[in-house]
Each structure stands twice: as structure tokens, then as C-alpha cells.
């Protein structure tokens, strides 16, 4: 239960157009006030539980994403916010876009929309909470994502 009451998030903007980002930030502001659920935008992966990713993966930020994922202590949940993070969205076949976040790190929940409303993101956080509890109970560890020399995921 404790996990579900204190989800600290780290917000990672990888390839986003800012639309999703500002909505993630809007979740924290008075009108939506995610802190009601104990959500803190904590900044450092070392203290985070939920990784909120906006935007798709490109060749430059793929390592960033993996590094940050590896630095979050278990149990952890990845929430892909927006069409870009979920599937690559409108940019899915741009030359510098590898695809959705799940091409690189395991994603636990997706939030649709371009951009998703803050309410949708809150839904996502709530969904992430139950996954977090499950992971704790089942002692499910996130696998260490290896940084490949080539920086290109095999399934890209």
C-alpha cells in the first residue's frame, strides 16, 4: 500500500514537441494537483518510482533513456505519455525517430492523445500505481537495459 500512496515521478522528455510535457507539468499545478496522490516530480532517478516519458526515441536520446531507466531503483514503472511515446505518433517514420519508448525500455502503461489531457495523465499515474504494487508483491525487477555500443535497439 505504501508504494501506491507515494509515487514519485521522474519526467523524461525525450523527443517530445512539448505538448505532452506541458500537460505533464500541468498535472502538478493547482487545478489538477497530482500531489494529492503523493506525486512529487522528484528530478533524480535515484528517488523515483515512476518514469513518465514523453516523446519518441531518437538516435541521440536512446542512451539517455536507458541510463535513466537503469538508475531507477526497483520496483519501477514506466508510463509512456502521448502518441509519440506510445507508438512514435505522427513522427513514427521520421528518419531520426526510432519509434515509441517501448522499442528501448519496457513500458508498463500508455496514455493516448496528442496531447493527452492532464486527466488522462492522472489516469495513467493511477494505473501505474497498481502496477507498482504488483511489482512489489511479485518482487519483479526491471531488467538492466544494456547500452549497446551501436546505440540502436535490435528491433528498430
Amino acid at each position, binding site marked *: 500500500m505504501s508504494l501506491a500512496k507515494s509515487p514519485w515521478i521522474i519526467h523524461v522528455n525525450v523527443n517530445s514537441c512539448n505538448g505532452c510535457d506541458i500537460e505533464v507539468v500541468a498535472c502538478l499545478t493547482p487545478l489538477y494537483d497530482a500531489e494529492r496522490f503523493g506525486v512529487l516530480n522528484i528530478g533524480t532517478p535515484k528517488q523515483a518510482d515512476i518514469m513518465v516519458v514523453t516523446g519518441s526515441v*531518437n*538516435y*541521440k536520446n536512446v542512451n539517455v533513456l536507458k541510463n535513466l531507466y537503469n538508475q531507477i531503483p526497483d520496483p519501477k514503472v514506466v508510463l509512456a505519455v502521448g502518441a509519440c511515446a506510445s507508438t512514435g505518433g505522427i513522427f513514427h517514420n521520421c*528518419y*531520426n525517430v526510432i519509434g515509441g519508448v517501448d522499442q528501448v525500455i519496457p513500458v508498463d502503461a500508455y496514455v493516448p492523445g496528442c496531447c493527452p489531457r492532464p486527466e488522462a495523465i492522472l489516469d495513467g499515474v493511477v494505473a501505474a500505481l497498481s502496477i507498482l504494487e504488483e511489482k512489489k508483491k511479485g518482487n519483479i525487477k526491471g531488467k538492466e537495459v544494456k547500452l549497446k555500443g*551501436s*546505440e*540502436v535497439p535490435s528491433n528498430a
Partner: protein
Amino acid sequence: MLDNTIETTEIKSSGELLKTVEGLKSDGYRYSTMICLKANEGHDLIYIFEKDNKLKNLRYFVKPGEKPKSVSGIYLCALLIENEYQDLFGLTFEGLAIDYKGHLYLTPNSPKAPLA
């Protein structure tokens, strides 16, 4: 060409280019941006300058294999766009203030010169 072409002044050599740009700077023009187009195997560079909300455009043709001169020594702010074209078109500008060597946006594994 067509009637809605933008007005440009043709520049013949890179020496002339630098001189013209310097002249524009002393006339109080701001560097706005530069446009790169593929043309006749080479590239057309359209330099856009602005003063009092009016634009002045220079067009310079880069022959295949030619290394155009950077104007970042005159206008520092030109360095970003010139680096961008190094990435995207595979051009090489000489005398860049900061040379990202084709790694401004792209990393060694991304597609090379995608717009070329």
C-alpha cells in the same frame, strides 16, 4: 520561374559573399537565417538578412564538393544553421566558430546527411 519567387541577389564567389555580408553588417542588417536547397548536383544557399522588418536575400551556389566559407566569424549566430547543414546536407563549412563536425543533431549511428 514563377511569379511568386522571392527576391534574391546572386553571389558568385565565396570571397564576394563574405564581403557582401560584411557590408550588410555595417549597414545594420541582422542575420536571419540561411536556406539550403539541392540544385543542379550542388546546393543553393539563400542567406536571409533583415533590417527594419525588410528582408534581403543573397543566393550563393555551392558547387559539388566545394567547401563554403562560414559567415559565423561575422555573425556568430550563423554557426547553428551552418552546423545544421553540415549535419543534414553533408556540407562542410570552413571557419566555423564552433564546429560540431556533423554531430549537432546526429550521432554516429543516425542516418547520414538525410536531406542530401
